[in-house]
């Protein structure tokens, strides 16, 4: 009961923060609100029994993402977003249609937390019952991540490595002289 209450409250705060991110025009405030959004998500993950995911979201989302966005803001020195030029009717229409289609898709989804939902019945019981005896590691998430699904983690490490190389290639070199004269604001 108390779980459900915390869940509902945190999700409501998340929705309010997301709307605030959309409407705020000061970019520094947007980045700070994004940090708050990440922390609320990490809290929500803890309530939903996902400890590893909460840890990673708090460290990576509220830590690294926020720091990198602040670094970009410091480099571009842009303080406020400009007002949008046209009325947002077309984006609102697209978003409403997509949202309605997604809600229609969730109408017959199993109830939140149902132990008999199909996602818990086919492959998961095998991992839950046998991961300790097969790998000797009590943390099931680490066992699946590192041993049963080890190839995926190899791909993930390669993706991070590639992102590092990409950032080095894009902004690791010397700053070019401006090629267009007289176009600075």
């Amino acid at each position, binding site marked *: 009961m108390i779980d459900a209450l915390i869940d509902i409250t945190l999700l409501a705060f998340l929705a309010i923060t997301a709307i605030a991110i959309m409407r705020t025009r000061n970019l520094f405030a947007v980045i700070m609100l994004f940090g708050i959004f990440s922390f609320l998500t990490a809290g929500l993950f803890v309530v939903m029994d996902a400890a590893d995911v909460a*840890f*990673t979201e708090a*460290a990576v989302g509220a830590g690294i993402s926020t720091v990198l966005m602040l670094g970009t803001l410091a480099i571009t020195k842009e303080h406020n977003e400009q007002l949008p030029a046209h009325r947002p009717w077309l984006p609102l229409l697209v978003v409403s249609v997509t949202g309605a289609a997604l809600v229609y898709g969730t109408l017959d989804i199993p109830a939140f937390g149902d132990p008999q939902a199909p996602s818990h019945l086919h492959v998961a019981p095998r991992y839950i019952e046998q991961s300790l005896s097969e790998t*000797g590691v009590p943390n099931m998430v680490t066992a699946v*991540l590192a041993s049963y699904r080890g190839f995926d983690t190899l791909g993930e490490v390669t993706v991070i*490595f590639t992102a590092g190389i990409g950032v080095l290639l894009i902004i690791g070199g010397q700053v070019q002289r401006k090629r267009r004269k007289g176009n600075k604001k």
Partner: protein
Amino acid sequence: MKHNLILRVVTKLLIPVIVLFALYVQFHGDYGPGGGFQAGVIFSVTFILYALIYGLDTAQRVMPMGVLRALASLGVLIYAGTGVAALLKGGNYLDYGVLAASPVAGQHLGILVIELGVGITVSSVMLLIFFTFAGRGRA
């Protein structure tokens, strides 16, 4: 930031604690929440904190960019190398059961080694990206 005495002293006291916590999360990822990714990010935060308080030049003297590039490649090499070691010992690629005396011990050893590789790569890449962004802003 260089003239703030409280910040500098507290940073000097905190950095060893954060490094210890990162190592704890790395090696206890088997018994509790944690693992390579979280530990790598926490470890890189120590150097980011150091760079914020003591300046980017000092931080780049402590941890040069060349060392970071080598460490990032080393982590991926450790991970892929464990798979090749399993191949050389007669099993499939990334089949940890053949790495030690018994399959369960081999699995445990394999998981430990690849999480180490993941932690090294993640920490060096996060630090690399931060140093690149900070260095660009200074130019």
